[in-house]
């Protein structure tokens, strides 16, 4: 949570952003907003976990020229989607004794329900991609988001590969770029908070982890921390189970 803390991401260019956009509906920033459109841009955060959100999402989609999913929860289901890797009722029972007022549905990314014009990935979302989305709309062009893996960023930084050289179970090879290869630069394995790169070969990395002697459960956990709701990482889990 907290992706709507817009100021956290645009604080370096607040005057420019304020001069270019009107904030019509942002609960965290303003009273008396309304979800009645039309909107030039809708930035949607969060995974969808209750049925009414689907209705609201569809309504917002209809009224918006461009809709961007922002943050890993909205883009790929994120951390909330871990719940779907377990019997959900059991998970809910661990938290509430009385479930009569709990109406959760299986957590999903925004594009499960509506067409999305672009993904501002990451947890937290990449500032650069947010600016890119906003400036692309202002200038009437297609936004250019990174469509390559964390490995590329790591190489550009000149890091030694921690997967090969230090045997750390790094998710960088299958994770979408955008963070600037943060974890490998901080001496730790990437945990894929930006989610899978589209069409990545996740099963190959799962096999590599297995060959490194990592247990089945640990490998599955790696691919379900942020990617439980994605086709790419589900494939890795399934391959491993065969």
């Amino acid at each position, binding site marked *: *949570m*907290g*992706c709507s*803390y817009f*100021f*956290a991401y645009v*604080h*370096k260019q*607040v005057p420019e952003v*304020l001069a270019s956009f009107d*904030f019509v509906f942002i*609960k*965290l*920033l*303003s*009273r*008396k*907003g309304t979800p009645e459109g039309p909107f030039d841009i809708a930035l949607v955060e969060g995974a969808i*976990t*209750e049925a009414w*959100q689907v209705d609201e999402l569809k309504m917002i989609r209809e009224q918006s020229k461009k809709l961007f999913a922002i943050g890993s929860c909205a883009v790929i289901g*994120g*951390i*909330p989607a*871990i*719940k779907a*890797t*377990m019997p959900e009722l*059991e*998970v*809910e*029972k*661990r*938290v*509430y*004794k*009385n479930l009569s*007022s*709990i109406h*959760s549905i299986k957590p999903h990314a925004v594009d499960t329900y509506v067409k999305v014009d672009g993904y501002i990935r990451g*947890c*937290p979302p990449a500032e650069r991609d947010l600016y890119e989305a906003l400036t692309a709309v202002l200038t009437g062009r297609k936004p250019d988001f990174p469509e390559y893996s964390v490995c590329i960023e790591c190489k550009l930084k000149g890091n030694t590969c921690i997967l090969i050289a230090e045997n750390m179970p790094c998710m960088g090879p299958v994770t979408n770029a955008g*963070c600037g290869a*943060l*974890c490998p*630069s*901080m*001496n*730790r394995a990437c*945990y894929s*908070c930006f989610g899978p790169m589209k069409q990545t070969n996740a099963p190959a990395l799962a096999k590599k982890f297995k060959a490194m002697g990592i247990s089945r459960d*640990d490998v599955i*956990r790696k691919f379900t*921390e942020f990617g439980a709701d994605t086709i790419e990482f589900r494939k890795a889990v399934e391959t491993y189970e065969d």
Partner: protein
Amino acid sequence: MKIDINYIARVEGESSVKLEIEEGKLKELRLNIWEPPRFFEGFLVGRKFDEVPDIVARICGICPVSHMTTAIRAMENAFGFTPSTEVKKIRKILALSQILSSHLAHLYVLALPDFFRLNSVVEMLPRFDKEIKRFLRLKEAANSITALFGGRALHPVSMVVGGFTKVPSKADTEKAAKELESLHGDALETLKMASELKCPALENNAEFVALTGKGEYAINGGMISSTKGLDIKEHEYTSYFIEGEVPYSNAKRTIIKGRGSFMAGALSRINLGFDNLLPDAKKASEDIGFKGGGNPFLNNLAQAVELVHAFQECAALLRGLSLKSVKNYFADFKVREGAGSAVTEAPRGMLYHYYEIDRSGIITKANIVTLTAHNFLNLEESLKELVTENIDKPEDELILLCEMLVRAYDPCFSCSVH
């Protein structure tokens, strides 16, 4: 007359206040925290201990450092591991940097517009250009401290069980300390601004609860103390505090056994720890005639005092780090079966984490109680008092007052439905 404030703006997360007035008397009032629940305590079961800090960070976009630190400390307690003094220092620097970010965002962006009858900080421009620029300056500095140690300002990546995977250079921390020291004037200006805001009258006989320490403004651990004589250790938490479900809310509500509601947060910390503030913060606070108090609206002012303190303490801690070798900042520990808990002062107030772990490091039980569950009942009681005392006010004014009070408590409804 029924009033339904169907969403409270400028707070983190989703909630509404519903109230009913009949013949000039308040008949009913409910704070309904309707943000969908996320079940962290449910799906943490079956995950491994080393993933927990990264997972619980995502409970909140404002206080990830607090959730991470509390979880890490709880698990270290379970393993019987004690981190080095240097590790503790960095954890405190990170906690203070996050208190700064959180308080700044709350004071300037969430709370301030009400006092000028504006709907948002956006409407404050261009009239309050000077204040907004000051806010951005301070916020940038606070964020850069979190990023200096954590790699990024939100969801830092270097914090792990056992210590830190990387630490910055001495040159970088000296530079950062200098930057923080140069902002002392801005922090004092913020306090002055907060002291000039006209705060609605409201009495509250709440029990104020916060961590306290000997000779230290306690943040990461200490005794759990209250203004009504509570003085217990962190691991005794569940013997004194009980959390219960609320039929009309997705968030749970916590009370002190046999006593009832209480208030945690910056005002509680000031009420209990005023003497442990650094001399400059203490003096600045005394100069404006503030040493704590019972009115929950004073929480705004308490946060402003903490800003002055936190900038200074953070700079002093930065200057005191040795940073000779990264090896001093991580120690190996043995994973063993056990249970552990920890309490920290998140920016908004007291936060509790508890874990049971099996011998291979898998979580078998998790319990997290956030500040907003701690304050939930007290906030409802304060709202009732506020409405009762202002029952003749026009509806618009009454609604604004209720919203201002909710904001003054600085709740995080997202955290509360973790």
